[in-house]
């Protein structure tokens, strides 16, 4: 088990990259550190690897304090964003390199290297030099090198950001199956929430050096802690609308007074809030009725193949709403041209974020 | 943390020790010496600015200054122009790498020739007697030609020529790399627009390598100011100080006349000028870097 306790990292000129960072990772889990650039995820990974010394705090691997330990003493494998293959060595030597450092005799380490290369289907490239490989192939070599010494922990620093869309999906599958086969604890750093949701057992979302939420992808999606998490997860992004709480059960939105069907944890009477609703949890109709009281001006309609996505505005807020009936595409397109109106219902499940601050006040 | 600092110093220690003792210390010592009348007897006595006064009072100083300035400017100008000429020819007009490398290699030969040999080459080439090469060649074309002592009669031209030939390779190669990295598109666009070759040189090549040109100008100027070796070996400043340049006079005063203090003073003045140019350059390149960022 990996324990990160009160990690704090300050760089030159007082740039605080991590603050009061606490995380517990169980063995064999696949964890994603997710967040925008500069949120501190790479810093955390480098501290875990021993490539950076934290300013304060401790890191424990299975109860042992490794905070000051050198990378080579931590039994980790790491895949870098740039792959960092050794250009003067063949693929085989690259993969066998970690075993060479351990003093493993040549024939043994070459055998192990070949096995791993077989597993990732690059056995035919063993005599080449890295410069002669494509991006995806280099990626696989980097993976082989990381796992050949059977580490307890596998660290992945945005390994797929240099690949094109199709390769990304291919490598994603490879990484996932490797992790499951070997049972290693894997920690992935990424800014791609789709990637994180697809691969990870649990995701830690970071912003400004602090963990915003640490939970399963599903929980992050359904029950985000705050505005930041809600906005980050999901594609298309969540819709947000400004409203004011009139009392514990009603709010005013777009000039209309509406009932709040979600239970809140505190009294927000008179306060500004933001409602966050997923595109596919809202619905609209062409004629106003009781369940669809909000008028929305239609701007654009997109045909996504499996359904339609309608862009519109309610007051000053822009929204995207899914519409399942594709046959009405032409109708909606015409409506959009005229900037016509449809009537929106908020559905039975949404989030209420207290403003300012963005904390989610809903009791799930 | 402390261990890391020690590690750094450990790596650097041979470097630091050598530089301090044999580079920095002499630099400081030179300044100190310039205020003394140290000579062959090796007795120190501080005389304040007396040496500097001597420099101003010396009747030769003006001649030496004139020689130095002429030498530097003329040589530098010729070197830069020829470097551009060679680089453009071998990189832009000559597309074949084989020929380009061939010519560049030939240009490099004078540079890698040891100075003691290089100077003899010129002395032989311009030998005053009838057997001298140039004299023989000229007599071949004109039977009445009487041999000229080239080095004695045109010493200034000779040292400029000798120095230029040796200096060409450096700038030519730097310009050549620079021209090579100009994006092909610019040339294509110019050709499509119907530009003549001369226009291409003027409006594409030169503007693109302007920073390199500035660097070479600075580099060659510094070199010409401080490198007196070829002059020493070919004319030794003569005849009668006609090719004596500032740096060479410092050498002569110190090692021939054994007036170490006086020689140091002459050196210090030159070092000051060099320093100013270097500071100007560092300042210019730093502001350029900042504006690029």
């Amino acid at each position, binding site marked *: 088990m990996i324990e990160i306790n009160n990690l704090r990292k300050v760089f030159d000129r007082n740039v605080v990259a991590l603050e009061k960072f606490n995380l517990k990772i169980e063995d064999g889990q696949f964890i994603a550190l997710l967040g925008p650039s500069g949120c501190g995820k790479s810093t955390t990974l480098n501290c875990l690897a021993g490539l950076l010394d934290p300013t304060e705090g401790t890191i424990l691997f299975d109860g042992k304090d490794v905070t000051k330990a050198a990378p080579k003493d931590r039994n980790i494998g790491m895949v870098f964003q740039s792959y960092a293959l050794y250009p003067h060595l063949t693929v085989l030597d690259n993969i066998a390199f970690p075993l060479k450092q351990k003093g493993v005799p040549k024939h043994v380490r070459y055998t192990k290297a070949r096995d791993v290369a077989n597993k990732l289907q690059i056995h035919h490239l063993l005599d080449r030099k890295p410069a002669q490989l494509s991006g995806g192939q280099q990626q696989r070599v980097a993976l082989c090198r990381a796992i050949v010494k059977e580490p307890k922990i596998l660290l992945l620093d945005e390994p797929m950001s240099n690949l094109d869309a199709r390769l990304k999906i291919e490598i994603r599958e490879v990484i996932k199956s490797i992790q499951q086969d070997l049972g290693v604890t894997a920690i992935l750093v990424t800014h791609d929430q789709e990637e994180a949701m697809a691969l990870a057992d649990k995701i830690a979302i970071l912003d400004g050096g602090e963990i915003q939420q640490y939970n399963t992808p599903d929980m992050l999606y359904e029950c985000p802690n705050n505005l930041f998490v809600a906005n980050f997860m999901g594609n298309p992004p969540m819709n947000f609308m400004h409203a004011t709480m009139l009392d514990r059960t009603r709010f005013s939105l777009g000039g209309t007074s509406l009932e709040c069907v979600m239970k809140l944890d505190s009294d927000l009477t008179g306060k500004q809030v933001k409602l966050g609703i997923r595109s596919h949890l809202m619905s609209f109709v062409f004629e106003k009725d009781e369940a669809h009281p909000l008028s929305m001006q239609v701007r654009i309609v997109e045909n996504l193949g499996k359904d339609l996505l309608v862009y519109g505005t309610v007051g000053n807020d822009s929204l995207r709403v899914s519409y399942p009936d594709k046959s009405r595409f032409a109708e909606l397109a015409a409506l959009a041209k005229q900037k016509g109106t449809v009537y929106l219902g908020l559905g039975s499940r949404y989030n209420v974020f207290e403003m300012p601050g963005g904390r989610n006040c809903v009791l799930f | 943390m402390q261990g890391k600092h020690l*590690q750094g110093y450990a790596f650097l220690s041979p470097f630091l020790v050598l530089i301090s003792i044999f580079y920095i210390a002499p630099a400081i010592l030179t300044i100190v010496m310039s205020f003394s009348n140290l000579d062959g007897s090796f007795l120190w006595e501080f005389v304040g600015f007396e040496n500097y006064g001597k420099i101003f009072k010396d009747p030769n100083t003006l001649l030496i200054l004139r020689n130095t300035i002429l030498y530097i400017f003329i040589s530098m100008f010729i070197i830069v122009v020829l470097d551009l000429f060679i680089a453009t020819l071998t990189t832009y007009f000559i597309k074949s790498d084989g020929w380009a490398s061939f010519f560049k290699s030939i240009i490099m030969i004078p540079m890698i020739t040891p100075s003691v040999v290089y100077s003899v080459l010129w002395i032989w080439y311009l030998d005053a007697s009838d057997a001298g090469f140039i004299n023989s060649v000229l007599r071949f074309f004109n039977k009445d030609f009487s041999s000229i002592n080239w080095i004695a009669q045109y010493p200034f031209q000779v040292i400029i020529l000798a120095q230029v030939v040796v200096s060409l390779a450096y700038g030519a190669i730097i310009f050549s790399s620079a021209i090579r990295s100009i994006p092909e598109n610019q040339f294509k666009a110019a050709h499509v627009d119907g530009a003549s070759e001369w226009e291409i040189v003027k409006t594409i090549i030169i503007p693109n390598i302007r920073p390199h040109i500035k660097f070479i100008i600075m580099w060659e100027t510094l070199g010409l100011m401080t490198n007196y070796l070829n002059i020493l070996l070919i004319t030794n400043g003569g005849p009668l100080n006609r090719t004596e340049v500032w740096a060479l006079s410092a050498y002569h005063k110190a090692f021939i006349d054994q007036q170490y203090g006086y020689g140091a003073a002459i050196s210090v003045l030159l070092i000051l000028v060099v320093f100013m140019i270097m500071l100007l350059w560092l300042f210019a390149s730093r502001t350029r870097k900042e504006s690029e960022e």
Partner: protein
Amino acid sequence: MAYQNLTHSERKKQNIAIAVMFVFIMPIVFMFIIFFSLAFIKDGSLTLENFSFVWGEMKLRDQTTIKSMLPALKNSMIFTFGVTSSEVVISMLAGYALSRLRFFGRKTIQTSLLVLRMFPTLLLLIAVLYVLMALHIVNTLKGVVLVALAFRLPGSTFIIKNFFDAIPRDIENSTLVDGCTRFSGFRQVIIYLVKPGIVSIAVFSFLSAWSNFILFNTLLFGNKTPVVATYIRALTRNEQMIAPYSVIAAMGIVYMIPVIIFFVITQKQLMEGNIGGGKGTA
């Protein structure tokens, strides 16, 4: 660019350029070729007699005797080997430290590198002489080696440091994760990545040390430790050639053989503008 891929007008321009370049370099080429061919001619016939100074004393026409070049050759070799090997090692260590390690004063030293490599070292010889005397190593080969090193190190260190800077952090980090210490990672991976830099420095160091004249001229007295440069110079004072040109040409050839060999071997490196080392005269 292959000849076939050029347009007609490009081909024409290339040929003109080649012709122009030939005319341009001809005087220089002739100067070298004709001079050095003198070495093989004595009394109108092809011979190698002019080279006899290499293995023993040599008698000249006017009854003067020239000492053998062997001691000078030996000293030159010792000097060059000493300078080049030390320069490569010391500049590598210093360059690595300045590039990768953290310590107090790093920035200052980095900036001073820029100044030191452009500084006119030749003007310091007066004071250098004094320092050598103070340390009791004046008039020794060892002393000249140390001075030559000190003058050249800022330049070499600067070059190698740039090479180290260019190595991606990730590769170094990768060696650490794969089980290396800084030193074993350096030895197994990093060195290979800066190999072109090392070669470049070694070549220029060799050229400079082998050809060096001024340091020996000013810092050594008497004839205790001749090197090839001072040996040849002793016979070629400006207006008075002690030996005939043919003999000097022969000496020149012998002197330049290692230079030509190095030059040919490292053609590529020199050509790619790695010329930052500069031969210098120090």
